[in-house]
């Protein structure tokens, strides 16, 4: 699954948390397409998605806008989104510069850390 030649979205692992990796560059030309591709990947019963941006070589305000929209759309379904971006990386810097604090960012794709952070809802739909 890809967003043109500039970027690609790849499903890494399917489980209670969906792990997805994004590579390439995200800008105005492909952000909308990528957003659709990511939403299509998300099944009803997953508690959330871990979107790994470590391999992304370029991110700007269009990409951040996309991430925020994803957070909103997933929240509608009671699902959470966590972004993986190593500290000190270019993408991490951009996230910080742009002040996208509503987006949950973690340093590494570590299971325990993410599971703790995502805190899937206990008790299902009646909570």
């Amino acid at each position, binding site marked *: 699954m890809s967003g043109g030649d500039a970027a690609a979205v790849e499903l890494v692992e399917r489980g209670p948390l969906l792990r997805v990796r994004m590579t390439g560059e995200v800008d105005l030309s492909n952000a909308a397409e990528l957003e659709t591709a990511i939403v299509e990947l998300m099944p009803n019963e997953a508690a959330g998605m871990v979107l790994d941006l470590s391999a992304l070589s370029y991110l700007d*305000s269009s990409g951040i806008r996309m991430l925020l929209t994803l957070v909103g759309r997933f929240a*509608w379904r009671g699902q959470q989104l966590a972004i993986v971006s190593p500290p000190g990386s270019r993408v991490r810097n951009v996230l910080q510069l*742009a002040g996208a604090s509503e987006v949950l960012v973690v340093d590494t794709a570590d299971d325990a850390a993410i599971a703790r952070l995502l805190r899937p809802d*206990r*008790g*299902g739909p*009646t909570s």
Partner: protein
Amino acid sequence: MDRGRASWNRVGPVVLGSVVLGVAYYVAGRLSLQLSLIEDNVTPLWPPTGIALVAFLVRGRRLWPGVALAAFVLNLPITASPLAAATTAVGNTLAPYVASAVLDRVGFRRELDRLRDAVAIVVVGALSMTISATIGTATLVATGTIAGRASAPAWAVWWAGDAMGVLIVAPFLFCLPSFRDRAFLLGRRGVETVGMLVLVGLVMAGVLTTGTSMLFAVLPIVGVISWRLQQRGAAPAALLVSLMATRAAVARTGPFAGVPLLDEMLTLQAFNASVAFTSFFFAASVTERLRARAALEASAAGLEERVAERTAELRAANARLAEAQELARLGFWEWDLETGRVTWSAEMYRIYGVPPDEEITFERAVELVDPDDRQQIRDNVRHAVEHASAEVPPVEYRVHRDDGSTATLLGRARAVVSGGSVARMLGTVQDVTERHELAREHRIADTLQRALLPQALPEHGAITFASRYVPAEEGSSAGGDWYDVIDLPDGTVALVIGDVAGHGVEAASVMGQVRMAVRAYGLEGHGPRTVVGLVHDLLRSFYEGEQMVTMLYVVVDPVTLEARVVNAGHPPMLVLDPDGGGAVFLEGQTGLPLGLAWDLPYEESIARLRSGSTLVLFTDGLIDRRDVEVGEGLERLRSAAAERVDLDPDALCGALLESLVPADASDDVAIVAARLLAARDRFELRIPADPARLRAVRRSVTRWLAASGVEHEAIADIVLACSEACANAIEHAYGPGEGTVEIEGALHDGQIDLTVRDGGSWREPRVGDRGRGLRLIGACMDEVHIEQTGNGTEVRMRRATHPAAVG
């Protein structure tokens, strides 16, 4: 201990989930049993089904033990025996289990934002609840709790209750998480939702006291809520209204007072179903429309520019075609046999000497033809029509124009056959009165050749190009010289120059084909040797070794400052060194011309260049003189160039032509010059306002900055700011003719000045988004100025490139 914990981690969530689900199921069930109609056993609205379905979809079907257990415990006090309770529980568990499995299979999405999801939940819900209704009713009959004849209504109530549990309760549960959005709750939409819910509740309450079937009057209100607020309004409204109606039905009040049970059930379920359908389908439809509209708006931006571009291209192509027709004295006509209408091109009118606004029929045209030739023309047409044949033999005939002059014309025609008969005829007419003039053919070849050469050279941030093409003097034959400059996708540039052996129209057409082939192979990403080899193979196989072409193919990389050269029998490339190195021909391997029967591999030579180096490619028309040896001709070129090393490419080409090519040259001359901009120079780039170009802009700017020695960290920041500013400009550019963005960079005194300019009119940015882009630009550059003039917007940015010692 560890292994115990590990297996608890796997099983734990399932057990916990099941327990919680079971509890929820039980509690909801107990509350719902208050709404029971038949022997305390059957209820018209069974929310636990909806809870179970949602839980299975969202948390997984492995939570089924919770439902089974809860159903069992629920049924115990109201069924004849534990066995009966167990059996009923099986039905209660199986129905939502199957429903969720089927929904997963068809790709159901819990947001219910597509019509297909709405349809899926209705159909699957309705069908799978037959399972629980059947098992449950059978158990009731088997245990004697109800009589056999009561089984049909009992089944109906059961099924309807479970189905409503799915249709009314499940959507509400699905949309619950969305209410956590605080912005929504406290905002205008939240207030509107609450208001609408209160309104519909009041109306419902009113309707339920009237005692008449005004129930359905509440449907339009539910419809409006669904339309205005989509799922977040539709689901709660539907739930509220259905609960109130069900309560009234159970208590036999209002519209349900004194109504027989079956009628009551029918009315109630009809009502509940109407509410469910209205709310969902409206909500899903509106959501789909909103999404489609947003997508449409996004793609419509930029549509105007593309249309304008295409129109301009078409217009230019048409103009060239008209010009070619005129030069060749070639007229074009079309005759629709069904309507009798004849259409003539402008040149036809001129050839026949008829005023351009006169209406033409076949008869009028034939009138002008010499009487001796008319019969032949009529015969041809008749033959084509009768035999429905597409072939019409060419005819040479004379016409006598109204002004008294006579001309000899050569007419070619074709019949367009459709459905077994001739519907249209079309053809050309050429004035061959002067057919023996070579000049005519020469002009045709010339026009063709010009049309096949590049119309404009590409703009490249790091290289300046110039070119000249001078056709041979009239009276001699035009050769097949061509040149091309190709912007390769990786930021390098291919310079091509070549000479097709032969002359006239044939050579020109071969030239066009070769030019396209080189372009195609080059853009595909092949290296120079491969490109040349592929074109050679193509020519060889197509013309069977009979067509020879010489070519020079050079790929220039402005970052590595390297030129990779492959020479197929062509004069060598000239390299001008900016710093007093003069002009030097690139000595390297020269292979055989393309297209010959032999297949020897082509070698690549590398030229090391410097910033400011100029490359000159030329065809032999520049150096071949009748009385001069080839070696001497080359030397003349070299010294002429060496004297003019500092000229820019355009002036250089002009100067070389002037000094080397006499006015009566017998051969074509083509010349291409390319100069690598010095590392410290300016950067200029112009792009159409198309988001797909952003990546190439980032690449170009990166290469320029890297070649100029700017430090890595600064490059990333500057490129980000530039891309943001361009994306900004692209989103502004709105309206025909305003679709270009200009980028200018200058590096001086340890700082970079970057300007992004567009000609668009300001378009309101999406709320919140532009702020982020501007914030990024501000964070990456030291200074930012944005100026909006009447003609567009200019963003000027500045950044120091060598970090000063910070205090």
